[in-house]
């Protein structure tokens, strides 16, 4: 089993860290992983994206043209990656960041109002963890157990007190993600 994922949004939305946590979770479950960021000026405000591959077998190319899952958090990302989802694949978008929703009928489309939920939780920083929760609900590439372990492993100890809040955000994400038909 191999899942090829693209995560894309504005710089600062936590796209790269979401990918990193996903990759670490894969590591915790003894899977093969690669994390390939766009490392240009995107980090400073433009559209940032990261490719994460989680696999039971050896991973060949870290660079892909088609994805099993696309997580798009703004309109330019949706426009760029909707055509690149494999037929039968999954597209997840944030309702707040996208004006023109996806139109393809040969893929599964999910909407997650993570921006609204983060505002409700009064913590914009957990936005990406809500999205990650949504992903794990509709495509369980890793378990929440693995994710929890990954947070302890990848975050510096001074931030460990924030992990329960982040796991709560993951739970919320799992609840609010909705399939669009």
């Amino acid at each position, binding site marked *: 089993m191999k899942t090829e994922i693209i995560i894309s949004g504005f710089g600062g939305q936590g796209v790269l860290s979401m990918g*990193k946590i996903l*990759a*670490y979770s894969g*590591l915790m479950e003894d899977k*093969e*992983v*690669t*994390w*390939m*960021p766009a*490392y*240009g000026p995107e980090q400073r405000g433009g559209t940032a994206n990261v490719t994460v591959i989680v696999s039971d077998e050896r*991973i*060949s*190319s*870290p*660079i*892909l*043209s*088609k994805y099993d899952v696309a997580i798009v958090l703004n309109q330019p990302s949706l426009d760029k990656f909707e055509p690149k989802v494999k037929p039968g694949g999954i597209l997840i978008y944030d309702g707040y960041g996208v004006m023109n929703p996806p139109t393809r009928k040969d893929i599964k489309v999910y909407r997650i109002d993570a921006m609204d939920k983060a505002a409700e939780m009064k913590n914009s920083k957990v936005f990406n963890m809500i999205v990650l929760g949504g992903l794990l609900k509709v495509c369980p590439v890793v378990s929440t157990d693995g994710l929890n372990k990954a947070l302890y492993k*990848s975050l510096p100890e001074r931030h460990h007190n924030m992990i329960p809040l982040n796991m709560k955000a993951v739970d919320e994400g799992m609840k609010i993600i909705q399939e669009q038909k």
Partner: protein
Amino acid sequence: MAEKQVTLMKGNEAIAHAAIRCGADAFFGYPITPQSEIIETLALLKPWETTGMVVLQAESEVAAINMVYGGAGAGKRVFTTSSSPGVALMQEGISYMAGAEIPGVFVDVQRGGPGLGTIQPSQSDYFQATRGGGNGDYYVIVLAPNSVQEMADFVDLAFTLAFKYRNPAMILSDGVIGQMMEKVVLPPIKPRRTEEQIKKECPWATIGRPADREPNILTSLELKPEVMEQRNLHMQEKYELIRENEVRYEATKCDDADYIIVSFGSAARIGEKAVELAREQGIKVGLFRPITLWPFPSKQIVEAAKGKKGILVSEINAGQMIEDVKLAVNGQLPVEHFGRLGGIVPEPEEIVEALKEKFIK
């Protein structure tokens, strides 16, 4: 023995960790995208407090390579890292090191050029790396990692080869391998060599004049042409020895293949996927990956290409390694090229399309 610890890190970070663990004595460098994580990681790990390794940010690449010259001249395991335009600045020092037969290691995490070019990945330094790079008749040993694991493994290998042959060795990576994170098992910890060991293993090193021998002089300058020719001939003999003994490569799915993709470094990873995709479409393709770019695995390519219909050289440049492939197969079968330029990294599908367009139609 304890289970080997698997960690997740960037190729750049792996270089820094591996260098400390394999007993490097010093790093001199100057930051440049896409490899600045190397010096950042070294600064974070503070090896001067543990192994005693020196980490110094020089005022420029030119200064850094000359610090490497000095440190390595004393028999120390010294390295520097940079990206394409920075490596271009270092070429004078590398040529001097080759001429004085000083064994340093340098890492090039390539970005697109010419000039300042772009910060995005490229493989357009193949010529710069494999043709010496600076002035004079010389070569540097060039290793091309295709994974974070090989970034970690090749640091010690580069030092070992550099000291074995008293010659600079280079790790030719690129922005893809430098920036991506993968699982890696870091190499075992080796202590730094003691002064006694250096004295024994590097009798040529300038470590202060012991009473029992004449002074060692390390220089690339020799004004008597007769002597200079002899020195050059000695270096050529050494290069021949390296060609005979140090070729490294990997051939995958070549046996039953009709076509062979030849790629190195990150392009070989993309090529591996192209092979999978092509085989799904019923096209029998194999992958040949030179691991040493100099010495180039010419004989091995000829062997792998026997009876095949064609070779597609896929590189992230306008066609550089293809020259070595063509020289190797010497017209025995068609050799075509595919590449993307300017910081664009080719997608696996593009390679399959190129293969079809050029050979199958």
